[in-house]
């Protein structure tokens, strides 16, 4: 039955994506991208060596120009995730994302209306949800499938570019998101754990500067952002738990410089911090849940992109990020990733790209709690991420 549900949802997802894909054939500058990503992460706590495998197949439609200043974008992931230790796997489509943007360059305004369609699975059985929860809960590891089936969410944003000079520009953006309630999982007794993520308000300001308007030797991007979130509610039977995230701020900067003819080296840094999470009534009868979120983070990355005639574009990067995670701030969490990306044009309308990453670090990972108390372990982690993709320009 679960299998039929998965297939129904997958078919629904394809049906929803198909008009966009077909529509691309008559539009200009339509880019369709298909990718396959496989990730394997091993988290070692004590003598235990659980392994977490995830395969994501994704199709995205980019820059599908509609009429005039309207552009449509879409993204549909289909994933298979397996927990080797428990032997449980979850397969199916995730939620489809659709973004409709209005942008007229002369005005320097952009408005975007987005909807996340509930094409993914919800109300999973407990054992499947537990697998999914590990993936979704981690903010240290990079899981490409960030959500399963949830309620239809609405999102709207408006942004504006303010020229400060020929080669310097400021950007301002404001967005709001309305999230609907959905079922996290269903117990064997038929009780549902439901979640209503809080609505969000985001604001961001950026400053971009470059040395030359056409072919800059260097460019700099600084972004300052903030977010205010409504409280998140969890309902199980007649009980309601509340998690309040508060305010988050972030500052990031990227500097890129030309090396030689076409090569570029870039350095980026990010700082992020938020209020401590505050939870009320997080006592639920079947399982105990804990709210976790990144309280503060710092990330640095250095990358080198090499462009040579008759060679594919090659990019090498090293990134490391450190986290303070609520409620386990005492655990030093970090992850370091070394990556290699290659892009090779095949035809004028087709390009192949591939990426490989190797990572290691430490993360809090919730160990068994026979007494019902959650005690996270300070776990080592290492893993690989391999992906290939095909981009078609129609």
């Amino acid at each position, binding site marked *: 039955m679960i299998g039929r549900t998965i297939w129904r949802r997958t078919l629904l997802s394809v049906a929803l994506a198909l008009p966009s894909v077909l529509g691309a054939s008559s539009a200009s500058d339509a880019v369709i*991208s298909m990718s396959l*990503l496989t990730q394997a992460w091993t988290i070692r706590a004590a003598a235990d060596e659980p392994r977490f495998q995830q395969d*994501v197949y*994704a199709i*995205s439609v*980019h820059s599908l120009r509609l009429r005039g200043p309207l552009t449509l974008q879409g993204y549909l992931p289909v994933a298979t995730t397996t927990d080797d230790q*428990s032997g449980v796997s979850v397969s199916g489509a995730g939620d489809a994302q659709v973004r409709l943007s209005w942008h007229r*360059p002369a005005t320097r305004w*952009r408005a975007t209306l987005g909807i*996340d369609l509930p094409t993914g699975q919800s109300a999973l059985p407990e054992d499947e949800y537990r697998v999914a*929860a*590990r993936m979704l*809960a981690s903010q240290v*590891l990079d*899981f490409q499938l*960030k959500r399963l089936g949830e309620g239809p*969410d609405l*999102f709207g*944003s408006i*942004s504006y*570019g303010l020229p400060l*000079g020929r080669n*310097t*520009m400021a*950007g*301002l953006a*404001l967005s709001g998101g309305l999230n609907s309630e959905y079922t996290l999982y269903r117990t064997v007794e038929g009780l549902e754990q439901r979640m209503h993520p809080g609505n969000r308000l985001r604001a961001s*300001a*950026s400053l*971009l500067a470059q040395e*030359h*308007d*056409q*072919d800059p030797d260097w460019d700099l991007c600084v972004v300052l952002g903030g977010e205010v979130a409504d409280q998140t509610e969890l309902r199980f039977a007649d009980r309601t738990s509340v998690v309040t995230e508060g305010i*988050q701020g*972030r500052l990031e900067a990227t500097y890129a410089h030309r090396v030689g003819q076409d090569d570029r080296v870039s350095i980026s840094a990010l700082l*992020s911090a938020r209020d401590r999470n505050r939870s009320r009534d997080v006592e639920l009868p079947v*399982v*105990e*849940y*804990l709210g976790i979120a*990144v309280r503060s983070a710092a990330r640095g*990355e250095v990358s080198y992109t090499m*462009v040579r*005639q*008759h060679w594919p574009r090659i990019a090498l990067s090293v990134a490391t*990020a450190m986290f303070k995670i609520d409620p386990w701030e005492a655990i030093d969490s970090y*992850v370091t990733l070394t990556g290699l*990306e290659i892009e090779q*044009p095949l035809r*004028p309308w087709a*390009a192949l*790209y*591939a*990426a490989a990453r190797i990572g290691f670090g430490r993360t809090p990972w*919730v160990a068994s*709690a026979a007494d019902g108390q959650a005690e996270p372990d300070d776990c080592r982690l290492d893993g690989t991420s391999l*992906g290939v*993709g095909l*981009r078609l320009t129609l």
Partner: protein
Amino acid sequence: MLFSPFPGRLRRTVRAAVPAVLATLTGWGGLCPGCSSFASGSSTPTGDPAAWPARLPELREGVRRHPQDLDLLAQLGLSYFFSDSCAQADSVAKLVLVRQPRQGLALFVRALIHEREGDWESADSIYRQVDDLHATTRELRRIMRSRHEIASREIIRRQVQVESQRWREARFDREGEGALEVLAAPAANTLLVQGFAPLGVSRSDTVLATGVTYFLTTTLAQTESLIVVDYTRRELLEDEILRSATASPGPLQLRSAFCGAALSITGRAGIPDPGAAAWIQYGVADATVDPGDPDYRGTRDPRELSPPTRYLLSDLGSEVVWIVEDRLHLTLSPDLRGRLARAPTQSFEAFMAFAEGLFWEQRNQFGRATASFQAAAELDPEFVWAREGAERMVGVGERGEALPPRMDRSVEFSEGLAERTIGTVAAKVDPMPIGGPEAPLGTADVTASDPHTLILIDPRVR
């Protein structure tokens, strides 16, 4: 025939000239401090243009004491000009020119007065003589070349505006009938070679696309009965189309495929394969004849070339002959056919170096352009285009800096930067932004604030 009343070197800085044009049109504020040094000979003071009116008494006194000093007299004319005394400036300049007809500074004053009056053609005729004028400094010549660019552009802009207005009116009148014939206002053999798009992301793709565009434009222009729209005119037409798209409702907009020409060539070019094979894809569109009409001169299917690079130019030459004879139904003499089909160089490396020069020239990086043109000429000393390119760069700037100077940097900004800024800031407020095609493999934003990552983990789960 290349449709441009101006010599080739005028094309090189049209983009950079825009701020100056705007500044000129908004009241001369654009004459930058650097312009004040145009007469910086040993006897010529320098300073901010705004200071010229204050120097009027001093110059009057100087002229009274040294009435034979024509340079001083011309400076007085300039001072009058910046004091908004155009009539006096004109009479002083004429006085100088009576005694020395090719006195550079006095002619410059006259040209500025013509500009202010909107008589761009007269100003243009003076600026054309810049290399033959007397008593000029290098800086004055540089400034006059800058103003020449501006005057040239303004002249073409006016032509384009008149034409486009006529097209719009004609189209509006006949909109209900859906007739395309009204668009045949320009000569039937007006051909626009639109800038070829690069196939890939590397500079080589862009460089080849630039070179192919130049090749087609220049080679087709050798056909006397064909009017080829050149780079400057194309830019202005595109500006006009963009303006029309912003200002007018859909049916009244100019069509980019039309772009003021009866026929247009659009295409893409690049070297996508490591096997050193170029890839060119193009089509010819006929804006004056319906595609269903037997007389339609456009290509119904895209033309595609993937020749080995060493034969690229020969193959392109054959395509030029095919376009002229088979598409445009023009008759070529055997001699002209031979010239069109003949590659300007047998060295693909030289052609790419030349195209690199064009690439930098269009971006006002004249130092880099010069080096590329020279490299092309060294690779093939018989390559005339490369020599001409290097000659175009002579005197443009020793350090390869853009000329004319950007007089008002706040007026024009980079459209590409604007797009990137708005895209970046918009993505930052999207809870789950859909990135580019590489996004699924990209580095994740591990600190993204997403309500769904506030997931509650089951402590019993192992």
